[in-house]
């Protein structure tokens, strides 16, 4: 079965969110999402400085099978996008919770992260 690390927060759209010590959050897609997509061939991510509201589309992940939108779990400003995914989109399949993080966001409202699903609640949706 797919992995759901206990230390992360989740959305029902299969994004994960990690609270960092500097106040930013890191966002990626879950193991379940990468398995459902199949071999990922392209990840389209926003540039640093762009702002998104909660639930807004921030990018696209494309696999051999389909292109899927990425939804921003938390409102805020992008401080960094993972440039490694340009050259190695297959990292999404290999390290969904590690090397294939997608964007780091400075939240508009830091408390918003607490409204996301915890690991148990996310696991229950799978």
């Amino acid at each position, binding site marked *: 079965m797919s992995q759901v690390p206990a230390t992360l927060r989740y959305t029902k759209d299969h994004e994960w969110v990690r609270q960092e010590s500097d106040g930013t959050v890191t966002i990626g897609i879950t193991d379940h999402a990468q398995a459902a997509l*199949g*071999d990922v*061939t392209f990840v389209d991510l926003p540039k640093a400085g762009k702002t998104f509201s909660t639930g807004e589309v921030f990018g*696209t992940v494309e696999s*051999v*099978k389909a*292109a899927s939108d990425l939804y921003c779990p938390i409102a805020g400003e992008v401080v960094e996008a993972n440039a490694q995914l340009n050259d190695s989109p297959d990292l999404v399949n290999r390290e969904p919770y590690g090397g294939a993080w997608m964007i780091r966001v400075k939240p508009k409202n830091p408390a918003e992260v607490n409204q996301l699903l915890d690991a148990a609640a996310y696991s229950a949706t799978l």
Partner: protein
Amino acid sequence: MSEPLQRTPLYDLHVELGARLVPFAGWEMPVQYSGIIEEHLAVRRAAGLFDVSHMGEVRVRGRDAAAFLDRVMTNEMSTLKPGAARYTLMCQPDGGCVDDLIVYRFSENEFFICLNASNAAKDIQWLRDHVSTAKVEIIDECKLWAQLALQGPLAEKILSLVTTLPLASIKRFGFLVGEVAGASGCVVSRTGYTGSAGFEIYLPAASGIQVARALLTSGKAHGLIPVGLGARDSLRLEANYPLYGHEISERISPIQAGLGWTVKFNKEQFIGREALRRQAEGGPTSSVVLFSLNDRRIARQGATVYAGETPVGEVLSGTFSPTMNKPIGTALVAAGYVNSEQLTVDIRGTRLPLTISVTPFVK
């Protein structure tokens, strides 16, 4: 719509191998096992085993069988030698395609035809509707056969481990009937839908799973892995083989699809002849082209092709090519633009230049 999905004789094996099963043409089929790109590359480098038991089979026999098939098919069947097979289209009077098929000649008066799963019932009805003599018998054998495709440069080596049939004697589009992995009455044909060497094997349905297991066991040391429909699509697209409903359909004729070589105008009469002849002589209004993109985004079915700001076509198939390491696809493009170097395709609002390829991406 709500008819239950059919399962092939290999269903239990797919579950055991951890396949991801999806609905396809009314069947519950494996789309992938280990991953589409890995499966694709295994076929190009070693070998892959596909369950294609969803494909249909029909036997056509009788004294007038050859003449009948000449009349319903675009290619010539009366000149086909027993022991050989031929690729052909079956067309409507307006030149649109009913289906593409492979016809095997078993003997003077006996033919065996492989049909697309999505068209099998329609094809058999079409054949029955166009028989005008009692000297042709049409027998639906869809439920009698399992079908495996063993494809890749090591396919012959692997198949030779489970059969004593003289495989080297089978030419391209030739076939033999005999025993494979203990199952008798198998049709072993040097054909395929991948652009790599290999065989397609028709087996009595009840023997399907036993033969598949024997092949996977014997072939493992040679790199043989099971391959699903996902890689089947990227393999056939690299080889520029058409898929019904994409490059050929009721609205796209063999002339438009670049399959004019399968249409034999020397035959005095066959369904679609006049319409196809007009297209062949006057040039079709649109044609199918093969393309690649220098990007990572895939142009998928339905995406619009532009010349400047003018829409001039649409994407018919699109996938990621593991061999080319870039997206490839086919598009139906208006006459006058098929050799254009200025075409673009719209992918979610971004226009990307499209590079037309006049040769397949493999071989």
